[in-house]
């Protein structure tokens, strides 16, 4: 029988939520790694029992945990992330040069085909890869060493590489996004990179054609149409129809085009989801109403999805890695909040219900569809 496994990273541990295909009754396990920040947990598409988790703390640094039984048991694997060569500097908040320093792993992206191959996006921005199930990590320095690197600046949350997309249609093509440098594409499996930010307009960047410096919050693609990318930027929801070579705005009738996550329906490449947030200075939903917005037209025309979500006095945020979809026939959509709720919709967003209400602040949500 089909089912789903929702992998939740929080400020104080990881949680695994499982259900059958109806997605009405949930089993909740955790906290795993209680007391640690779990920025991300993700399963291998090639082996759903293989999970990777990023575990970190300000006291004791970074660990990577691996599970080979779907999150029942875990084993710490390699945690040495060393930039290749002399790392050099990027810009600090005040514009002065600042040495590249590893802080944490924000995002883990397992290979589409090999359970032992996994990519890690880190702060300060860099891309690492492990080919042995997370035991050893090597940097792919072509991204950090892109000529624009010394001009990159951190966003308010740090200079993080938070998004990694692997193109299922074109081997070797991958995308990464860095706050606040922008989006980048590699066509040679991560060896070399080019910025793909043409068309982005960002307040605070005087040069309208700036190659980098954009605070991209999240990228999303549908596997059947990987040349189409969607982006939630600091402000603006954007779309590219040419693998990032150019972007145009599709914010349309959203009540605010500021936000963090963006995701695509599992079966409808033109159906996308965002969670509008009031502004960069007020990280909570407009009017205290938690609304997911859905576009069935690939952007521009948006409808609020409110059934089952709090429509008064709600002041949570939904972070960039905290939304995901399953691929059951009726697409499930999931997101977690900084208030510790994880909401699920088993009907593509029409109706919502909380799976759990009182977790620590949710940092990430991923979903595995199990057969």
């Amino acid at each position, binding site marked *: 029988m089909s089912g789903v496994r929702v992998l939740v990273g929080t400020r104080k541990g990881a949680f695994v939520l499982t259900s059958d295909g109806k997605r009405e009754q949930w089993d909740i396990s955790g906290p795993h790694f209680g007391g640690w920040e779990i920025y991300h947990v993700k399963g291998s598409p090639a082996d759903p029992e293989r999970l990777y988790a990023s575990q970190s703390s300000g*006291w*004791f*640094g*970074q*660990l990577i945990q691996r599970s080979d039984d779907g999150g029942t048991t875990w084993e710490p694997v390699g*945690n*040495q992330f*060393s930039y290749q060569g002399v790392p050099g500097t990027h810009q600090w908040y005040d514009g002065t040069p600042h040495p590249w320093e590893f802080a944490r792993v924000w995002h883990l992206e397992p290979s589409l085909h090999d359970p032992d191959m996994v990519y890690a996006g880190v702060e300060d921005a860099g891309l690492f890869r492990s080919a042995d199930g997370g035991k050893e990590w090597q940097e792919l320095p072509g991204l950090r060493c892109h000529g624009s690197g010394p001009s990159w600046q951190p966003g308010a949350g740090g200079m993080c590489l938070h998004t990694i997309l692997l193109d299922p249609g074109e081997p070797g093509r991958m995308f990464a996004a860095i706050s606040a440098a922008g989006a980048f594409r590699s066509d040679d499996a991560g060896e070399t990179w080019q910025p793909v930010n043409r068309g982005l307009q960002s307040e605070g960047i005087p040069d309208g054609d700036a190659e980098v410096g954009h605070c991209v919050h999240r990228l999303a693609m549908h596997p059947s149409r990987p040349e189409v990318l969607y982006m939630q930027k600091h402000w603006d929801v954007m779309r590219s129809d040419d693998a990032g070579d150019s972007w145009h705005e599709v914010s349309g009738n959203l009540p605010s085009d500021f936000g963090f996550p963006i995701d695509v329906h599992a079966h409808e490449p033109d159906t996308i989801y965002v969670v509008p947030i009031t502004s960069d200075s007020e990280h909570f939903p407009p009017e205290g109403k938690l609304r997911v917005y859905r576009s069935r037209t690939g952007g521009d025309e948006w409808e609020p999805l409110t059934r089952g979500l709090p429509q008064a006095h709600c002041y949570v945020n939904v972070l960039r890695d905290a939304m995901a979809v399953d691929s059951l026939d009726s697409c499930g959509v999931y997101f977690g909040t900084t208030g510790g709720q994880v909401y699920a919709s088993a009907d593509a967003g029409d109706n919502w219900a909380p799976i759990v209400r009182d977790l620590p602040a949710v940092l990430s949500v991923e979903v595995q569809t199990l057969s």
Partner: protein
Amino acid sequence: MIRVVLPAHLRTLAKVDGEVELDVTGDATQRSVLDALETRYPVLRGTIRDYRTGQRRAFVRFFACEQDLSHEQPDAPLPSAVAMGTEPLLIVGAMAGG
């Protein structure tokens, strides 16, 4: 034999209860004790000392015999009571954060 007390999170990681007892060859120093600790429990590598610099992580402290040894040189001898095993070396997570 050197006695070491780990903070709770690191005891969980290392899968130990209570104190850790280590045989240290040569002089008992922060470096030699931490080397022995990490050899016995490789999972602790990078959690007490930074991989890149080898320095104590900022929010980790070393106490023993009612003294804060955090700013001692890594190769300075530890107090004789620690070297003789009558007092433990305490590795402490600093009080910070929420």
